[in-house]
């Protein structure tokens, strides 16, 4: 009823005028500008009006940045997989348990979201640095004789990001698993499916959109994360986000910074598009 409004109705635009203008000026326009700048040349740290594809060519040919690009995707995929694998048992447990601590356990699983990723990564810094807790404990236990260099490293970045993005995967999977009627599992077992078969043939297919969603979410946030790679990585383990920061604030080559940002946008959107298609396919089954 409320939707049955004539097409010529200007009311929604009147209602939403201010926020729409705000978003256009402070989100739409800047991003459109960013896209344009990525096709302009920067000379002597100044933008020129010259149109060029050099920025993109540079990114995809210069070894440092090509490596950063590949490392970013490697980190993204690793974090995505790690988070889905870690989140699945947790989400399944939280959805199915009858424990009276359930509310508290859910809160505990999501509480890390309240802390900035800087703070959460800082915990890993405390653990992983050369004079950190991990080395202290291993020395104390006698596992190692010499202090190990655990960071900066790509592995440290992956662990740190997987840790800080885990709650998102848990949330997504809880949503998907919570939608699965527990009677379905009972029905499958009553029809003779073992616990394992039931899991593989009933729970997994139904949870698939959630698994994909959790992966996509972790992946897309991971590839654009700055703080964790900056803290747990170093000059030898650059990712796109740290490289962009470098271009924007130190090298002052905004064109290449913008081009890299565009690459990030495109990868991110492409992934969401693929996810939407995968989601549509699973939903149509």
């Amino acid at each position, binding site marked *: 009823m409320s939707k049955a409004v004539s097409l010529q109705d200007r009311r929604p635009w009147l*209602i939403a005028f*201010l926020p729409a203008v*705000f978003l256009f000026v402070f989100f739409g326009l800047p991003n459109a500008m*960013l896209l344009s700048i990525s096709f302009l040349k920067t000379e002597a740290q100044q933008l020129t009006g010259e149109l060029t594809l050099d920025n993109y060519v540079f990114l995809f040919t210069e070894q440092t940045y090509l490596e950063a690009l590949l490392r970013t995707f490697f980190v993204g995929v690793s974090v995505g997989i790690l988070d889905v694998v*870690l989140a699945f*048992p*947790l989400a399944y447990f939280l959805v199915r348990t009858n424990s009276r601590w359930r509310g508290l356990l859910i809160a505990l699983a999501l509480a890390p979201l309240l802390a900035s990723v800087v*703070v959460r990564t800082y915990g890993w810094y405390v653990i992983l640095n050369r004079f950190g807790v991990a080395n202290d404990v291993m020395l104390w236990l006698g596992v190692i004789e010499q202090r190990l260099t655990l960071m900066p490293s790509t592995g440290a970045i992956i662990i740190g990001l997987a*840790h800080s993005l885990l709650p998102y995967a848990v949330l997504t999977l809880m949503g998907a698993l919570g939608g699965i009627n527990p009677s379905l599992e009972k029905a499958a077992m009553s029809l003779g499916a073992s616990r394992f078969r039931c899991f593989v043939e009933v729970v997994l297919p139904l949870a698939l959109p959630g698994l994909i969603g959790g992966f996509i979410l972790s992946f897309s946030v991971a590839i654009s994360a700055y703080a964790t790679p900056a803290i747990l990585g170093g000059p030898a383990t650059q990712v796109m986000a740290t490289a962009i920061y470098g271009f924007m604030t130190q090298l002052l080559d905004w064109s290449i910074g*913008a081009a890299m940002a565009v690459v990030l946008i495109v990868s991110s959107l492409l992934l969401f598009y693929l996810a939407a298609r995968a989601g549509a396919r699973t939903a149509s089954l």
Partner: protein
Amino acid sequence: MSFLRVSPWSALKIAVGAVYAFMLTPILITAVVSLNATNRSLFPPQGLSLRWWGEAFSPEWVDPLIFSLKLSAVSAVLSPLMALPLTFALVRYTFPGRQALMALTLGPLLLPALVTGVALLQFFDFMGWRAWIGFPALVAGHVAICLPFAVRTIAISLTTLPPNLELAAASLGASKLRTLMEITLPYIKNGIVAGGVFAFIHSFTDINLSLFLVRPGEQPITVKIMGFLEYGFAPTLAAVSVITLVLPLILVLIVERLTGLGNFIYGGRGNG
């Protein structure tokens, strides 16, 4: 039945315990380290001291903390305020350009905040608005990236509002405005509050956007910590970290007490 259940379920419990340990250990260790007596991250701590906590409350840290709180508070108020008319237009009407408006609204959720930060820096520079870099630019950017959260929570409330409720009010003689004020807004109040809380948290924990829009003296606590980390480690940071962790927690607990925030938890998404 229950006999058969025991073993897989227990295995699951062990796995769940391990995941919780992974999740919470770094945070707990940070808290413990902040009590260290020496300027080292020794674990187990050698000697207890509140010295680093004292340092954490010096102006060097309190100033950016207060700046962060101000910034987040403004985002928490402005985001739901702007989201409200936007959500009404998107949920209640079909109109030409609705898809475009939808994309513009949810865009900040899809595009990395880092990119929006870069874009805003270039935008303010290009427009000759360099003077705005700092608090005003940060507010603009934070509201833009927090808006979608508020739109989402308000949309959830608005779509669960039974249509008959507004019809009932109309049948009882309430005009459109009175129905809005007395039925619709009170009904979606929790969605608005939840949107504000999400905006606050998202803004308070943001680093990716803020990174590009700060100026000396006008930087949120996350950027300050980030900058400090480049020079190395100090237990002060552990103390500061604990403080920034506890503040939003307190806020959420208060709001959860006052309203039923739990319903909106399933909607969250943020950037790392």
